[in-house]
């Protein structure tokens, strides 16, 4: 690579987050506008300054409450005049929207990109009941399936938890992963969530509670699965030249992790213990002179607890297969540990804001705005990772320009 990577021309200059909760009963556009307006104001801008808009995954994808509003809906609601806009699901995980914004800025296609991710899965599930699959009964023929789903649904592997459980059990086999080790991700999240007023689950949880929870898909139990919620997170990704003029400290984008070198498949990926996290993380370190030892804080995707452990290894904070011993006892990943993990509670306890909650928290911590849960040690560099299975993206953020 000649010269610094393109993403160094981008910085997160504003952050915003709507109310977060269960069954808020508000529309996803309402939540989105709350988060977006907060982020724009936080960046010291007005909506007239916003000339780019991006989201993941775009309107209409997935089950109820998953997608949030698409960019046309948000653009129109805010009457934005855009030079660049982008919404979609294929790419380096949820992070694709942020990464695309960085590249748009580096390419000169936009100067201030508003990026958001909205979920209303809790309200959607409340309205529709938690629907089982294929059990509608009463006549109507059961649909048939193509693509990847034809290889998993016939065998009752109907949920991402089943697919990720295969990763977990493979790790039990190869690395001797124990439930007590896996529990540490969930217990750490719950401890930190107690200090986060917006978190979904804040009451104390101990190892016994974890071990007594019902199994969902072994070795993953209820507390290994994140908590559906309603909420929206927004960021303003700006040309880094604007950072000195922004009223709040900016978080500079040091490197992005985008690679997918193995097969893009839940069941055919060569290394089932890591999957795509391995590639995204490797490509991120290829784009920076920083090293894992330089990272102060990590916000790692915990849609399922095991994924945070996969990311710890993929990003090089410990060796392959060593995340179990690494998290053992929980002290190393605690708020006052050597590598604080998921400081707002992660998705397991703070709610499934689908990666963007982690991104928001990384920025808060780098700014020193973490309040009761602010990391007291050095907080100059944060790694953020999104996704699981064949879907992965990562981001390295620094408090000052890289």
């Amino acid at each position, binding site marked *: 690579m000649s010269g610094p990577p393109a993403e160094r021309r981008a910085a997160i200059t504003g952050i915003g987050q709507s109310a977060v909760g269960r069954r808020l009963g508000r529309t996803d556009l309402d939540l989105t506008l709350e988060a977006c307006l907060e982020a724009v104001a936080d960046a010291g801008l007005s909506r007239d300054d916003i000339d780019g808009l991006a989201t993941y995954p775009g309107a209409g994808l997935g089950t109820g409450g998953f997608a949030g509003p698409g960019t046309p809906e948000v653009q129109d609601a805010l009457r934005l005049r855009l030079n660049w806009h982008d919404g979609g699901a294929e790419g380096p995980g949820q992070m694709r929207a942020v990464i695309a914004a960085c590249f748009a800025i580096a390419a000169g296609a936009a100067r201030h990109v508003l990026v958001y991710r909205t979920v209303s899965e809790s309200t959607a599930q409340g309205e529709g009941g938690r629907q*089982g*699959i*294929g*059990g509608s009964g009463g006549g109507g023929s*059961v649909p*048939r*399936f*193509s693509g990847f789903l*034809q*290889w*998993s*649904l*016939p*065998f*009752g*592997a*109907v*949920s991402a*938890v*089943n697919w990720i*459980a*295969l*990763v*977990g*059990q*493979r790790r*039990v*086999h190869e690395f001797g992963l124990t439930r007590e080790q896996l529990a540490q991700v969930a217990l750490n999240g719950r401890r930190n969530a107690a200090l986060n007023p917006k978190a979904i689950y804040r009451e104390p949880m101990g190892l016994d509670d974890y071990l007594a929870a*019902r*199994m*969902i*898909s*072994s*070795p*993953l139990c209820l507390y290994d699965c994140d908590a559906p919620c309603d909420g929206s997170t927004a960021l303003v990704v700006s040309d880094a030249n604007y950072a000195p003029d922004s009223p709040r400290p900016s978080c500079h984008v040091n490197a992005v992790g985008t690679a997918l070198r193995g097969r893009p498949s839940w*069941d*055919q990926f*060569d290394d*089932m213990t890591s999957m795509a996290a391995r590639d995204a993380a490797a490509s991120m370190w290829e784009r920076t002179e920083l090293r894992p030892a330089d990272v102060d804080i990590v916000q790692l995707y915990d849609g399922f607890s095991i994924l945070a452990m996969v990311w710890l290894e993929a990003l090089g904070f410990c060796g392959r297969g060593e995340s179990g011993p690494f998290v053992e006892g929980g002290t190393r990943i605690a708020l006052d540990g050597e590598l604080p993990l998921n400081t707002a509670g992660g998705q397991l306890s703070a709610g499934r804001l689908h990666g963007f909650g982690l991104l928001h928290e990384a920025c808060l911590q780098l700014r020193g705005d973490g309040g009761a849960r602010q990391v007291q040690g050095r907080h100059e560099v944060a790694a953020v990772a999104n996704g699981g299975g064949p879907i992965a993206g990562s981001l390295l953020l620094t408090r000052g320009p890289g």
Partner: protein
Amino acid sequence: MFANGPAIRLLPRLDVDNRFFWTGGADGILRFLRCRSCRQFIHPPVPRCPACLSDRLAPEPVSGRATVHSFTVNYQAWIPGSDPYVIGLVAIDEQPDVRLMTNLVDCEPDDTLVGRAVEVVFEQSDDVFLPLFRPVSTLPDDPGTRSGR
């Protein structure tokens, strides 16, 4: 003991690419697409060999033997009426980078299951023959214990 699978089998939509795979079990034989040029097995089926890009591909029988790469016991009743069942991920003997999700049957899903040798048994559901796998038995083979075999 665990169920052989969910209470309702959600089935594949058969098309020109996958029909041989999902209906091949009618004669008790597991088949994969194979490249006639470089002899790679190809899964899922696609129109060209991803290894050498040849379009000279045809389904070929395999032994039906495989090794358990991973598994999970599903307890959540995503499909109403389902009892816990074992989802397996198996690597076929002929080419271990070809894997299938499946149900592991007639087995105890403990930590020793990964690495176990298994063999295919088909379960018919409508016009589809689902390849399930059971531990390779040391007993004489008893064909016909399952529908479609």
